[in-house]
């Protein structure tokens, strides 16, 4: 926008004041989480509460790993989310390429179908999933969860990958086809390498969707060995006495992968999310 144009709504002070207020609003809960996670059990229950721990300790983190099987939760979340992300991005890339490059009968309908499935609420599906997975012996397994997470991730991945592939000029495909490359060859040797950043963004987005889910995990698992990070955190809420420092340490560690991945790939993710909405 133009600097120094007349009739500005707000002065600089007001704008920075607002920004600082928003930043405080956004940051305070994180600071509170970090601060609590470094406290002793006794200090967490002090009145009035302290913002900087009088005695900082990593006990809460250690107990999360030793008393709460946080290692298992972390491993489960990682394995399940990674498998989901890779699978859904691969199938999403295939379908995205198909939608991007081909004109065929029923194309609009299929695109509508992919979009509509993205709208379906998980609670519509958890009941049947519970029964179907039990029937096939997949209830309370990682495989079962991966299948379930595909429901959340595949429509999104397809949409994102289509957006990224749309940005690759069709002339490249044509050139490769003329050179004797097959369609498959075009897809694997031209399109995928060029849209590698887009694939990474899609994989990460799908990973985070799966990582953050609670509904499916809570409905489709029953044993301690299948608990994920989110479920491990959510379950402690029902306990008689909540160990807040431990819980905050868990929350922080559970949120960390998401924070790091987002910050690294902010720009790509925005591109992916808005794919289709901004067209050149």
């Amino acid at each position, binding site marked *: 926008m133009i600097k120094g144009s007349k009739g500005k709504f707000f002065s600089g002070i007001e704008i*920075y004041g607002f920004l600082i207020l928003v930043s405080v609003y956004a940051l305070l809960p994180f600071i509170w989480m970090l601060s609590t996670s470094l406290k002793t059990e006794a200090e967490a229950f002090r009145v009035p509460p302290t913002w900087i721990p009088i005695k900082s300790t990593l006990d809460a983190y250690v107990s999360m790993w030793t008393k709460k099987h946080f290692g298992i939760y972390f491993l489960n979340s990682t394995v399940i989310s990674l498998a989901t992300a890779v699978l859904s991005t691969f199938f999403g890339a295939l379908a995205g390429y198909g939608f991007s490059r081909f004109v065929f009968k029923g194309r609009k309908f299929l695109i509508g179908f992919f979009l509509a499935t993205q*709208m379906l609420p998980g609670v*519509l599906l958890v009941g049947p999933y519970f029964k179907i997975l039990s029937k096939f012996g997949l209830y309370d397994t990682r495989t079962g969860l991966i299948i379930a997470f595909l429901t959340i991730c595949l429509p999104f991945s397809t949409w994102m990958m289509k957006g990224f592939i749309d940005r690759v000029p069709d002339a490249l495909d044509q050139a490769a086809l003329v050179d004797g490359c097959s369609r498959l060859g075009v897809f694997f040797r031209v399109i995928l390498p060029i849209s590698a950043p887009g694939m990474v963004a899609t994989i990460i987005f799908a990973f985070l969707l799966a990582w953050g889910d609670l*509904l499916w995990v809570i409905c489709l698992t029953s044993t301690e060995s299948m608990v994920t990070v989110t479920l491990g955190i959510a379950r402690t809420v029902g306990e008689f006495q909540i160990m807040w420092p431990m819980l905050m340490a868990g929350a922080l560690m559970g949120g960390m992968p998401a*924070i790091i991945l987002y910050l690294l790939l902010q720009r790509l993710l925005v591109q992916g999310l808005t794919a289709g909405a901004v067209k050149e």
Partner: protein
Amino acid sequence: MGGDGGEGKTSMKLLKIKDRQMWIFFVLPGTILLVLVLAFPAFQSILYSIYPEGGGSSYSLNNYSILFSDSVFRQVFGNTVLFVILSVASHLLLGLGVALILNRDIFAKPLFRLIALLPWVVPDVVVGIIWRWMFDPVYGAFNDLLIKVGLISTHVQWLSNPKLALLSVIFVNLWRGFPFVMLILLAGLQSIPKVLYEAGAIDGASRWQLFARITLPSLKKMLVVALALDIVWEVRRFGLIQAMTQGGPGNITEVLSTYIYKQYFQFFRFEYASAVAVVMTVALLMVSLPYIWMISQEE
């Protein structure tokens, strides 16, 4: 392109036709997968919803008549509508406000954007847990801060007071959700050519006119995308409420997702829960159908 002999031409043509059919190879795997993992279970849910509760053989709409006369269901439905409308409206207001400011030439812009993005980045379960602890009436940070600033004088029960609980949850959801709208709108703002504003300024347009005539119309599509996705996500919101209140006190903060989960896995009323889920899905599809229509027609 194209061969010179008659034979070569036909084979080239055949190749082209063959190539045109290749969409099946690309689109089919994903479609089949979606039908298997989504459409099939969804259909099964509809079937459950017309089974009689507790066994029996005849199909009926009985579960639906039970739920529409159920006062708890009506309360939960109302909660969900209020939760979604207030969440999305507040996301839009704050998201647009912050996006407009971050689109200016300001000091330390990347830092502010990064900070504002953080709440959306962490899993919503984590958000629910943090704020539950923030809201703790005695040991929590929220009351302590508000008392220090002088906004309140006694400890407020944010999550156990029936009059406040739902609003408190919505307040947390504002915190959680505004960064997404901000992010999308910021991307939209940055794609508006600066020339437009310069031309407007030369024509003597005021700031407000520039905003109403250039900014808003250019943002229209981004606004629709942000709104549609946000509505769908907020209708389905589960982890945040489950971690913070589990629907309590009473049914004050119960939304459709948590309600259906309870009917399924705590009360084992599969048929009734399916009926509620079907109603929820129909409502959700009705809200998002214009969006789906718009996008698929454009493609």
